[in-house]
């Protein structure tokens, strides 16, 4: 783990992806520095979620390279990406709806497990120690995200904003190096959004986790992110710090043009 701090944790080079002839991404290249919060914005259908799916290997790019933490993703699948330290949350909650909050978080810890099925089933060997360690980690996350009141409740019964927090807790469980957040504030009111934004920057500061974030609320993105990539029709049209992106004419035309620059709204 003596990789240089200057080297980006994630590099995408000329990534292209199409579905049945429709181009979702064309020659997208950008990098993510270790420890930064990187935002990904663009109108609906610009290819943002597809790009996250390429990064955590739910999709395989047709062309181009993804290099994470020095590892070139070739034969790596979704589980492999998770094992290498990439966690994500989903735009449309992909929580385990019928499981409790605690079980969702514990399921997220599965990839940290070292015990065998036999140890597990009979509660022997390292099972006891691991059980204790996982319980402690889950407790820590529950406290961090203020989920104390919901521990044993089924996820499907919880308000949307709380579910988003559970999703974040599940993703954080295994102490990821890179956290991909797909619209973590979608469908939230202003108060909830601010709270979530605080959680995101807390995660970044306290755990040093690198974050790639998709979000429609430009105001929040400008506050949170150090650098922003703008996608439109599957192409990168801008890449840089918020101020620079904000004044980029292409961006204004493609995306911000919909709303007034001074009035951060959401494109829907």
């Amino acid at each position, binding site marked *: 783990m003596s990789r240089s701090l200057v080297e980006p944790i994630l590099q995408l080079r000329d990534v292209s992806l199409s579905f049945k002839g429709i181009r979702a991404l064309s020659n997208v290249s950008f990098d993510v520095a270790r420890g930064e919060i990187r935002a990904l914005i663009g109108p609906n259908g610009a290819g943002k979620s597809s790009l996250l799916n390429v990064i955590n290997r739910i999709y395989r790019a047709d062309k181009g390279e993804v290099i994470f933490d020095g590892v070139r993703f070739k034969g790596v699948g979704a589980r492999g990406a*998770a094992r290498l330290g990439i966690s994500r949350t989903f735009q449309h909650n*992909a929580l*385990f709806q019928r499981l409790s909050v605690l079980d969702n978080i*514990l*399921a997220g810890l599965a990839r940290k497990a070292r*015990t065998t099925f036999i140890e*597990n089933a009979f509660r022997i060997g390292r099972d006891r120690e691991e059980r204790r360690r*996982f319980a402690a980690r889950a407790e820590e996350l529950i406290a961090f995200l203020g989920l104390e009141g919901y521990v044993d409740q089924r996820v499907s019964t919880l308000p949307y904003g709380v579910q988003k927090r559970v999703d974040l807790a599940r993703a954080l469980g295994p102490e990821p190096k890179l956290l991909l957040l797909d619209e973590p504030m979608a469908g939230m009111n202003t108060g909830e959004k601010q709270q979530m934004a605080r959680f995101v920057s807390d995660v970044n500061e306290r755990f040093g986790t690198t974050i790639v974030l998709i979000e429609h609320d430009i105001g929040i993105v400008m506050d949170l992110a150090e650098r922003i990539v703008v996608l439109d029709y599957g192409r990168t049209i801008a890449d840089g710090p918020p101020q620079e992106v904000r004044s980029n004419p292409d961006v204004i035309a493609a995306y911000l043009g919909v709303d007034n620059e001074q009035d951060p709204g959401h494109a829907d």
Partner: protein
Amino acid sequence: MLIEVLINGLLAGVMYSSVALGFVLIYKASGVFNFAQGAMVLFAALTYVTLVEKGIWSGFAIVIVLIVMVICACLIERLMLRPLANRDPLVLFMATLGLSFVIEGVAQLAMGTDVHILELGIEDGIIEVDGMFLSTFDLFATAMAGVLLVVLSFMFNTTRIGISLRAVADDVVAAQSIGIQLPRIWRIVWSVAGFVALAAGLLWGARQGVQFALTLSALKALPVLIIGGFSSIPGAIIAGLLVGAAENLADFYASRFINGTVSTWFAYVLALVFLFFRPTGLFGERDIVRV
């Protein structure tokens, strides 16, 4: 008299539960109705009987069969499930249909088509409890089903593997992207379903002899699953009891009017009624839509 008919029916229903349990396990973890469960019941029972007939001590024979079932599970996962991962449930169902014939064919090729007698050392006697006549074998089967229920519920609800399993059942894509190893989960579930098949095979085999017809136990499990819900372990047990009791009662009342039995098809009518009014069964979850 009525109580006795009812209780004997309930106890007979345990046999159905034992088969249905195997289906539920696989349905829970992979969202597929495993038609081959019946063939697995036959295969497990046939392997056991063959070993015992060769003079192997029965306890040791059980261990060997368990190991064989684990090997089968690994083969099925590698050769069938993995290449078909994320395909339509109907595709998987058709695959299990084919698998059913393969298992059956291989079992009979290797071990013959004779009907074997299976002795569990439990006498199928009658004891009198509180004025009712009950079968000791049925009581034994009930105890066995009870143990299975407790063990499986424990496994599903409290172990880490159980949590992963339920996570896979809930959302396959999300489970993969948080790093749950799908192939490993499948191997475990199919192995456990193999153990359950052995338990069911021993019970059915001891009753009816170990023969080809054991495969058809799959068809008997179908109404049980519809009534109990495909994804509920307690549902499989309770619905099995219910079907057993309903069949026995139906025969009991029908015998007053007609000369013959209705129990061969009564369970299916009952299942149909459930499909009309409660399509998810007694304990079923909402329909699982898979991507």
